[in-house]
């Protein structure tokens, strides 16, 4: 062999060196492979198992929300389709084309997709949602031509829906994706980056009850995340959220909503002997269905920029001067403190003068000598300015205001409740750096100036009088029920939050005075319902002496004298000064009372009152 090695050709030594190099490199590689496959093989086996196992989250169904009748849900979940794109499954250079095609199919702009999938993430193996709430027909179209849409897929996704849309928007609230700030706060309570949570109303208040627990499915997948293999898929079933039953009566809610109509304002209807809120309406409102999904961003900014503040629940989140409705409180205080008896009269002339503060009587000629029942029925400013300043005095007046629940939150189970304000001398010194003067007391006595209350607080004031001095915490939640079985898990018991020891005689006289308002008093022309006796008080708050804008209040209860306390309801209506003045609050209350006690819808109420020729104002 050695003699066949040709001198002319390859130097033998070099062939040997080359051969040794080849062999050494082979051995080196084999050494590395030995360590990879034999020594560390188990590590890679585990890793390859883990790569293939992917757990997918099964979202828990959010609990449904029902009204007190527990029949048709006010908030439920619907399945919708979301279209997703996995950019790594699209061949290089074809992204633009696929995006354009998909955008055409979905009726959106290609830039909408490019914004969600920038070129820098084209290699990312992940489904990125590009549109939710896609109609079924579009999905069918996509499925039939799926070969033209590499990387595009769809998934079903539960979406919160509110069948009554705008009617209960403030009460129920709406849901949205968790924000990074919210996640920081809520992380330890079981929320994660995928959580969808309540952003206002009941949805926010009872979010943890509604959430439920996510399930998981663990499966073997290929690189594209597609399920492969016959092995059993391990499933940890999700636990649905609890269902909530509210105290709200959907029919009364709709009635109140319709009665208020498209006037900026609010209505509260509650049961005085338990604190159950039967209806809570605020206008302007919004459609919570529009706040989740594709249009959310646009709708949201639109609502945000609306100067009328549609997100504001005016029943609890904004306060107004109570105006003449405060005279109920003064009547109660004056009678309870025995400063005046029902038969005593005070001269109510055209003006009440205190230093340079002049209160004009709304009837230019004044009322002459009148008793307290007449004064409340006719809403005499001069009479109650005298009672407030001369009889009660600052301290007693303010203490009654506080005892009736003004200036503090009622503790209703809804987020964002405002306390309103009972001004005090210390408060005035702190804020305005000026001393309390008699004029301030006069202002409180006629419900003007700094005193401000929410519609719910005003309803509570009447509830105390109806309920013999006992105030229950107003609440919206009635029962919590199991999401699977519907079994009642918890029931909200009425909770007393304030007990005023008022003499029965006082209570009886105040109610009589309030009844006088609707029978011979200021509200008589508009309280026309024959089905229930109403006792209440109107209020007209001047918001500025320059303009002619007035808030219109009406707060009342009915029936006036009930044998069964369960029957009685309190209604508080506020119509904001921003509306054209039409003295709508008592008119709306009239419709609401008639609808509740005749068990009629708004349309039926209107028709019924018209038939009885008692609806002159509509």
């Amino acid at each position, binding site marked *: *062999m050695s003699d*066949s*090695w*040709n001198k*002319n*050709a*390859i*130097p*033998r030594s*070099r*062939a040997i060196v*080359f*051969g040794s190099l*080849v*062999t050494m*490199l*082979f051995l080196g*590689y*084999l050494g*590395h*492979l*030995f360590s*990879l*496959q*034999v020594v*560390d*093989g*188990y*590590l*890679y*086996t585990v*890793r*390859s198992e883990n*790569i*293939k196992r992917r757990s997918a989250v099964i979202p828990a169904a959010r609990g449904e929300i029902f009204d007190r009748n527990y029949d048709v849900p006010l908030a439920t979940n619907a399945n919708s389709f979301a279209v997703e794109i996995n950019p*790594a499954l699209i061949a*290089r*250079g074809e992204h633009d084309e696929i995006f354009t095609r998909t955008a055409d199919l979905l009726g959106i702009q290609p830039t909408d997709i490019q914004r969600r999938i920038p070129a820098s993430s084209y*290699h*990312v*193996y992940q489904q990125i949602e590009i549109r939710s709430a896609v109609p079924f027909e579009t999905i069918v179209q996509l499925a039939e031509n799926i070969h033209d849409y590499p990387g595009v897929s769809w998934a079903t996704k539960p979406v919160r829906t509110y069948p009554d849309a705008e009617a209960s928007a403030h009460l129920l609230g709406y849901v949205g994706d968790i924000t990074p700030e919210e996640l920081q706060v809520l992380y330890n309570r079981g929320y994660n980056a995928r959580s969808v949570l309540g952003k206002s109303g009941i949805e926010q208040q009872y979010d943890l009850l509604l959430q439920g627990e996510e399930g998981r499915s663990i499966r*073997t*997948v*290929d*690189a*594209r995340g597609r399920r*492969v*293999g016959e092995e059993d898929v391990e499933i940890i079933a999700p636990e649905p959220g609890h269902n909530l039953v509210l105290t709200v009566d959907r029919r009364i809610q709709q009635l109140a909503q319709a009665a208020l109509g498209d006037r900026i304002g609010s209505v509260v209807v509650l049961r005085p002997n338990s604190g159950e809120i039967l209806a809570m309406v605020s206008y302007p409102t919004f459609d919570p269905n529009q706040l989740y999904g594709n249009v959310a961003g646009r709708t949201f900014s639109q609502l945000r920029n609306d100067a009328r503040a549609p997100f504001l629940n005016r029943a609890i989140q904004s306060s107004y001067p109570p105006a003449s409705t405060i005279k109920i409180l003064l009547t109660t205080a004056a009678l309870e403190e025995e400063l005046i008896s029902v038969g005593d009269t005070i001269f109510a002339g055209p003006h009440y003068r205190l230093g340079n503060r002049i209160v004009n009587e709304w009837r230019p000629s004044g009322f002459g000598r009148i008793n307290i029942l007449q004064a409340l029925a006719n809403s005499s400013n001069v009479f109650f300015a005298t009672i407030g300043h001369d009889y009660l005095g600052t301290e007693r007046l303010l203490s009654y205001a506080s005892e009736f629940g003004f200036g503090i939150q009622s503790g209703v189970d809804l987020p964002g409740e405002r306390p309103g304000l009972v001004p005090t001398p210390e408060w005035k010194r702190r804020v305005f750096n000026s001393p309390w003067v008699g004029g301030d007391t006069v202002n409180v006595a006629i419900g003007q100036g700094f005193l401000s209350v929410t519609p719910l607080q005003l309803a509570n004031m009447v509830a105390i009088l109806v309920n013999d001095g006992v105030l229950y915490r107003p609440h919206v939640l009635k029962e919590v029920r199991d999401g699977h079985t519907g079994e009642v898990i918890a029931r909200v018991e009425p909770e007393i939050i304030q007990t005023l020891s008022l003499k029965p005689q006082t209570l009886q006289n105040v109610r009589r005075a309030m009844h006088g308002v609707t029978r011979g008093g200021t509200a008589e022309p508009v309280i026309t319902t024959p089905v229930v006796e109403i006792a209440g008080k109107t209020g007209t708050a001047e918001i500025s002496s320059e303009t002619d804008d007035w808030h219109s209040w009406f707060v009342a209860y009915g029936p006036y004298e009930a044998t069964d306390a369960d029957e009685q309801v309190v209604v508080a209506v506020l119509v904001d000064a921003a509306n054209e003045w039409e003295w709508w609050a008592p008119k709306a209350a009239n419709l609401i009372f008639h609808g509740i006690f005749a068990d009629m819808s708004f349309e039926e109420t209107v028709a019924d009152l018209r038939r009885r020729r008692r609806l002159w104002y509509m």
Partner: protein
Amino acid sequence: MRSRSIFGFDVYILTATLMLLTVGILFVYSSGLETTGDTLSHEYVRQTIWAVTGLVILVSISLIQYASLKPWIPYAYLLGLVLILMTLLFGRVVNGTRAWLGVGILGIQPSEFMKIATILAFAVYLERAGNSIRQIPYLAAGSLLFLFPMALILMQPDFGTASVFFPIYLGMCYMAGARVRHLMFIGLTALLVLVFTMLPAWEHYIHGSRIPAFEIFSNVRVKLLVLAGLVTVALVALVGFIMLKRRSFYWIMYSISILFLSLAASVGTRAVIRDYQIMRLIVFLNPYVDPRGAGWNVIQSVTAVGSGGIAGKGFLQGTQSHYHFLPEQSTDFIFSILAEEWGFAGTLLVFGLFLVILLRGLYIAGNAKDSFAGYMASGIVTMIFTHFIVNVGMAIGLMPVAGVPLFLVSYGGSSMWTALAGIGILMSIYQHRYRY
């Protein structure tokens, strides 16, 4: 004479080749298999056709007197260049590279065949040059034969294929007796160009913080200063060498020149090289810099190889591959499937078969009856060796990802025919070794 040569096939190489072809078809089949058991592609059918036709080519070439090829070699070389030029003009783009000529499903990659043409042409050159290859001008002039196709292939751009030419040049020159210090100079310069090109990216992705010394690569002024300094030192050394005739000055000049050249060249390469190529080099050093992107292939491939263990998961039982975690699994990453399904045992088999071909190829080179045949054989052995080292190295994370197929095993007609034609030439040299 002729009858003896017909039965004079080299049985070792032939057996190893047939076995590798079989393994290749098996794993191309495996790579096309869905987890459901459905075949996803019919690549294995085509692979079989190419293997069979390739074997016909092998046998035909082995029967030819290789000397009779000589007059055709310049034309083959020129034709190859023209074809590659045509790919640049009318070529089809596959995987971002304009390297294909053809219509419909039939396509060829001229750059694959160009390797053989270049080897043949350079063998002619080396034979003419004889001992002169020990002189720098001859060495340099010969490199032009490689630089033309490399430049054209880089324009496709196909970094992997182009890079294979370089070791072939070095290997053939070495076997032809060129001076080791010259070859080392070239090799070290090339290595340093690569390192210098990468260092700024390394600083950014892996080291994480700025290193002041790296101003050399990013700041042109600093770079010029350093280059000027190097030139000065080199000139001083040159003067010293001529005046004092001391060897040490020669080596100073030698290393300074390497530094100078690679620094200067890295300016050019950094302008030409693309971001994704830099990333491939970076993820070679640390695939977890971009685990979902550029590093994905390396991580998945090494996981597949490692999870194969000693005996493997069994033929068609690989999960990394059948769940499509491995991209390009019938071409670039065929070794990963093999290593996953047949384990270390399969690895040993494939290494053994290639070692047989390479060592036997070297034996044929050494026993060739003339230097032209010896150089050809050396070039073919180097080519097969380079492909093996780069492809397997890539699959096990020892080499950066470059689209270089594993000869005889990877799916692809052009590379299959190139390999079998090369082996056919080896056979021809073996068969005609005694003919004077």
